[in-house]
């Protein structure tokens, strides 16, 4: 699903060149549930930007779902982000003045999907994260956990190849965090490929594989023998099958 070979990312800061990533090889297969860990400055954010096609590597090859995206240009990257990647951010990043439903419809808007289908798919995605009742609420009328669930619905509504979450529980209390992780585990069980960037070890324990970054390269890559099972408190039944 994801194949990285010799990825380097070098930022030029005046005359000084800083290597954020210095030769990373990584393979993530379909239906894996991976967490990327590392202290700040380890290069995990740069890794996240490249994995999410927000940025291109200075050197190296990146195959996503069979396509070489390392050399793609701005608008091609936008199409790849739209079709193959579902983003979830620490700060939720929902559009403040629009309803939950409209937020979830947004990626399909850019994909050129018609209004009726857009609405139906957005509603079913919101139902699958347990927000079927609150589709017409604006982000500020929802709790942090609910906002992040809207963001998850927005990420999975286009049926992306991978779901990328950058510190998805960073702004949440432990109860909401566990709810969000429960949703991820359920999506994973349905066959979705999920990559989470986090610095919290107990969040990483919910995943099945932990990749550790330090100083721009991979320091460790281990399989989690017995992942913790997240307790869902308020999640409704049903979901989006992959």
């Amino acid at each position: 699903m994801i194949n990285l070979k010799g990825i380097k990312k070098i930022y030029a800061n005046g005359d000084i060149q800083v290597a954020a990533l210095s030769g990373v090889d990584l393979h993530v297969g379909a239906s894996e549930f991976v967490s990327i860990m590392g202290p700040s400055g380890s290069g995990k954010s740069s890794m996240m930007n490249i994995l999410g096609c927000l940025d291109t590597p200075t050197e190296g090859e990146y195959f996503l779902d069979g396509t070489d995206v390392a050399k793609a240009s701005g608008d091609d990257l936008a199409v790849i982000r739209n079709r193959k990647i579902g983003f979830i951010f620490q700060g939720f990043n929902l559009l403040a003045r629009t309803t939950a439903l409209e937020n979830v419809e947004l990626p399909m808007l850019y994909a050129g999907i018609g209004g009726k289908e857009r609405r139906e798919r957005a509603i079913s995605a919101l139902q699958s994260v347990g927000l079927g009742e609150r589709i017409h609420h604006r982000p500020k009328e929802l709790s942090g956990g609910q906002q992040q669930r809207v963001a998850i619905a927005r990420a999975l509504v286009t049926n992306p190849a991978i779901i990328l979450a950058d510190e998805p529980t960073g702004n949440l209390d432990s109860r909401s965090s566990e709810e969000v992780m429960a949703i991820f585990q359920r999506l994973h069980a349905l066959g979705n490929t999920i990559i989470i960037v986090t610095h919290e070890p107990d969040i990483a324990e919910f995943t099945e594989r932990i990749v550790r970054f330090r100083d721009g390269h991979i320091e460790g890559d281990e399989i989690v023998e017995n992942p913790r099972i997240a307790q869902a408190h308020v999640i409704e039944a049903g979901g989006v099958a992959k």
Partner: protein
Amino acid sequence: MNFLESIRVSLRALRANKLRSALTMLGIIIGVAAVIAMVGIGNGATASITSQIQGMGSNLLTISPGQTNSGGVNGGSGSSNTLTMDDVAKIKIGTAVKAVAPITSATAQVVMGSGNTSTSINGTTEGYEVIKNVAMARGRYMTKNDVDTSARVAVLGPTVVENLLGDANASIVGEIIKINNVPFQVIGVTTATGSTGFQSSDDMITAPITTVQARLIGRKTVRSILVSASSETFMQTAQDEITATLRKAHKIQDGKDNDFRVQNQADMLATMTSVTQTLTMLLGGIAGISLLVGGIGIMNIMLVSVTERTREIGIRKAIGAKSTDILLQFLIEAVVLSILGGGIGIALGYGGSSLAGKALKMSTSISMTSVFVAFGFSAGIGIIFGVFPARKAAAMDPIDALRYE
């Protein structure tokens, strides 16, 4: 994303910021309204001057005395007294000339019983009735016989009757009025023409020129001679004929300047029209500047809006918006603002100019051209001043935009 969806997204953003959108539009509204109203008022002024000049009579030639020029001091047009009743007699009615009427005028106090008024007394001949298409409400106009015999008869305008008796329809024909203590018999009342401006034919007394010269002025002067050409095609012939006749009568040698002027109505019209058109362009130009300022206002607000919505742009780009999607969204916002402002401005300008027309008692006319030009101009301003902020938004790096606080 298709174009219709882009429009919907832009409209939603504008609706979310109602006050700001309205204030941004205000610049364009005022600019467009000013252009429309100013051009409308200017066109109205042109039309009213044109109709006034045309109302002076059809195919009209005006002969006025030339200017004195003694010792290099130019006395200005009309400063000499070179026109006489003999000149009038020499201008013969024929194929080119339909009617001739000399004019002399004075301002006098008119008394009838307890009523009195001050008005202008126009001394002329029966030819005036033909030239000016005078219509009688009651009684009759003066005849050649009245002129030849210096009869003390007068034709009154309806305003004069109203000023004397308090009612324009009061019975007055056959009565005696005193003009500067000279008794005149009223022989007729003209119909109201509603004309205003210089030389209202409603507030005027007309009497035989011979009587006015003898009884009221005491001199045999002729202020001007009006000539009506038989048709528009004979205007030039008539003008040439009159010039030749008067040069001969005044014994002007070849090569010397005329001591009189023959003006034709078309020349006057052209002069006045060019003056009012210059005025219209001036007013329109000033209003155009305010339109430009309005456009800069749109750019200003759009730039603020782009900065303020950096994070939104980042989110949209992260989930798949292309640069053109973002460009279109902001460009459409700017164009919608300016077109909406333009539309409201046209309505306001239309209302404003008709209000101004009522207040100033003049007709205004909105030309379709000025509406289209103003509308097109405001849409153009939206595009021109919207492109820069929209490009700025489209060029944003999604990572930086997402990180923006």
